[in-house]
């Protein structure tokens, strides 16, 4: 049987962003169009390798003629659209979204968000000024094995880990959003521990987490010992040695020890996703507590 494939004709749309005319291929998101125009947009729940869920609302922009602001990550650019990315309304919404998050969630390990909070003048302290303290996530870290930990005090509910565990990468469905409103949490069924759940320890949830709510146990322990020094870490790109698929690994080393493993989000084989072997199976490189060989 022979099949014929028609090459789609690429059409472009032209829109105005902050007064500048921008031309992009049809179907491009406003966020990407902004990027091509050199406009930096804060994002949180958006990632290159995941389906946009547009829940964090930090990337909102003002589209002329529309009552509410639009999530730039999910809304496609349209011909003759007029977009404002720095209007009073946009600045207010971005400032408030970041401020809300900072008022209830521990964002210590999210430097990118802190940068934007400073940019928009978010003041998270103003929610606590009375005898009634502002409600916080209030979760203790879940440490259930030696591979990774979940610290939901840092969780912004961006849905990225759920997507990576489910339809966007792993198809394991070990975690989902449970509860409702401010009580919503990322959880296994009945909050069972990870070893008792469907989790296969691919660690793709760690790879996509933007706030350190899910992190390598090695990183967690080093941070606890006040010895996490990302500026001094070396990143070595290599190919996973376990099978023939050819996943690229980035080995993050500190003091000549592997402290975490990632894969480039734009790598053609992995799109940033790995399996348990590539993510965690590096102990053979550096046996822990191995007795020093004596000759």
């Amino acid at each position, binding site marked *: 049987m022979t099949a014929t494939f028609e090459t789609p004709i690429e059409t472009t749309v032209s829109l105005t962003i902050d007064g500048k005319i921008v031309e992009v291929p049809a179907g491009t998101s406003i966020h990407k169009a902004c990027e091509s125009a050199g406009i930096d947009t804060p994002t949180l729940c958006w990632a290159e390798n995941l389906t946009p869920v*547009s*829940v*964090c*609302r*930090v990337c*909102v922009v003002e589209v002329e003629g529309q009552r*509410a*602001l639009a*999530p730039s990550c*999910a809304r496609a650019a349209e011909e003759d659209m007029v977009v404002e990315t720095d209007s009073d*309304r946009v600045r*207010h*919404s971005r400032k*408030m*979204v970041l401020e*809300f*998050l900072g*008022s*209830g969630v521990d964002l210590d390990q999210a430097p990118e968000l802190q940068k934007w909070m400073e940019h928009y003048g978010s003041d998270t302290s*103003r*929610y606590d*000024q*009375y*005898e*009634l303290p*502002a*409600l916080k996530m209030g979760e203790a870290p879940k440490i259930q094995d030696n591979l990774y930990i979940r610290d939901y005090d840092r969780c*912004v*509910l961006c849905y990225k880990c759920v997507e990576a565990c*489910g339809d966007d990468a792993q*198809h*394991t*469905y*070990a*975690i*989902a*959003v*449970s*509860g*409702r*409103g*401010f*009580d*919503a949490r990322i*959880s*296994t*069924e*009945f909050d*069972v521990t990870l070893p*008792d*759940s*469907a989790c296969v320890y691919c660690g793709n949830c760690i790879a996509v987490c933007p706030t350190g709510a899910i992190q390598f146990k090695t990183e967690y322990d080093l941070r606890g010992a006040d010895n996490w020094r990302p500026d001094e870490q070396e990143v070595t790109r290599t190919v996973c040695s376990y099978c023939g698929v050819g996943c690229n690994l980035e080995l993050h080393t500190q003091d000549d020890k592997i402290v975490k493993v990632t894969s480039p989000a734009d790598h053609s084989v992995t799109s940033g996703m790995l399996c348990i072997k590539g993510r965690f199976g590096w102990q053979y490189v550096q046996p822990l507590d191995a007795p020093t060989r004596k000759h």
Partner: protein
Amino acid sequence: MADLYISDEMADDAEIAAVDAALGGRFVVVRESERFVRAGTSKRHDHRHLLLPALHALQNAKGWISPGGLNHVCETLQVPPAEAYGVATFYDLFRTDEPTQAGDVTHVCVDAACQIAGSGKRIAALRAQSINVHESPCLGQCERANASTGEVAEFVQGVGGPDRVEADERPYELFHQKGDESLRLLKRIGVVDPTSLASYRAHGGYDALTAAMAMGADAVCTAVADSGLSGRGGAAFPTGIKWRAVAAEQGRPKHVVANCDESEPGTFKDRVVMENDPFAVIEALTIAGFATGAENGWIYIRGEYPLATARLQNAINQALEAGLLGDDAAGSGHRFTIEIRRGAGAYICGEETALFASLEGFRGEPRSKPPFPTTHGLFQEPTAINNPETLLNVLDIVQIGADGYRSRGTDRSPGTKLLCLSGRVARPGVYEVEFGTTLGEVLELAGGLTGSGELRAVLMGGAAGSFVDGSYLDMPITLEHARERGTTLGSGVVMAFTDEIDMVDILVRISQFFRDESCGQCVPCRIGCVRQHETMVVLQQKGSLTPDRRQLVDDISQVMVDASICGFGHTATNAINSAIELGIVPGVPS
């Protein structure tokens, strides 16, 4: 597709029997070979919509959803347990921890109409008798709230037996316009036997469907468009445009949905219609299916409406038997069936896209629009969704024509409107009035104010609506006048408050309602609702707000209006803002 991991916890016989009865033999068989191919995936997706009925069955069987019970459902429907747990924990009527007190649970409403009738006292009295009480958001029986008798809205969630509303066991005597010849939508209420198709036909039932079929689908859409009918749920979108858009879609299954998830605090009109004239809803939905070319009709009704659910199911059964539904519905040559789905206690599921998600077996989280339901609605297929009141208008339109319909009401708000009168009025209940009747006349229709105080405020359109004061009594009830004067008709709520009521208590409760009911998906609403409520609690404690806190009220409101995903976040600060603007909140400058 990987195998699902399901733990060793087993369901007991009662749970298995309940789930099997609810699913009626519909389950997913995914053979090992299919798991890795498309067929396995799509089989799962095809049956996911049975998750909600299965969870209801588990909850009813044991009074909670146990790990073993959930496993049985997950295995039967091939749903990942973490996702099913996420769905179960989304709804107020489902429990996922074993209750300490076994047996039925009495839900008592604590929202405004019942709050001012004394629900706090009622709850204390029930608890003193060791009755298992759950404090519930509005139960849609606001006309029963009565400060002098202390009656408030209640709903009993059964364990092992059916859910029930005890007040339903008495004859319904709170409809005060019975027999009024000017009625269009409510003419059969209290007159027709709601359990009998023959009685419905004897009162003009199914004449509208006959008329619609004689006109043809296209002419029905045209008549609905020309009539100027707009949605009565609050958004007032033109019904004709919606129907035309769905009718124009070809090549995919299409749906019409009756949005009977009436949960806006203060709203009970659709309940009164569904309980007392259920065949009218079925007939109107059949016309919607005929006009749009949809074969699938769905009724999504809130879980706290057991009588309405039973009456609608009975009406569907009788219509099926009479050939008015089915493969050749009413001899139209067109297949049309209706399936009922019960909600499980989530206000957000009245938002149309959240309703679709809930019906499909997912968490009731709204979806971003565009795309709109007319192209990507239920199951991502073209869908027309209307509430019962909107649908009822169509019965009239196809019989008297668009011009006849427009002879009532105003040019921009043709027809009549159902209003839900409650609070401090002498005769609370649902009233049908012609658009253009003034607010003052409406309050008089309900017997005027009751109690000792003077009018302080009227809540228009529900918790998502806004407060107005006595200066609005001359406002004609129309979409255009409401918009012009900065308020809304919303879902038809008109709730009166006198000056003997502490308005701050009301505002604290309204903000608590939104805090409890936000789905939690988007940041502005999830956290904004909590911060708004905290501000109101501080106001209640201190008696006033400092300038920074006052600024916070506005800042929270603006981001929720601008950046939330759906109408819930867009309107969750309306009532509080309007109360402040009216100057009826002591200690807060407007």
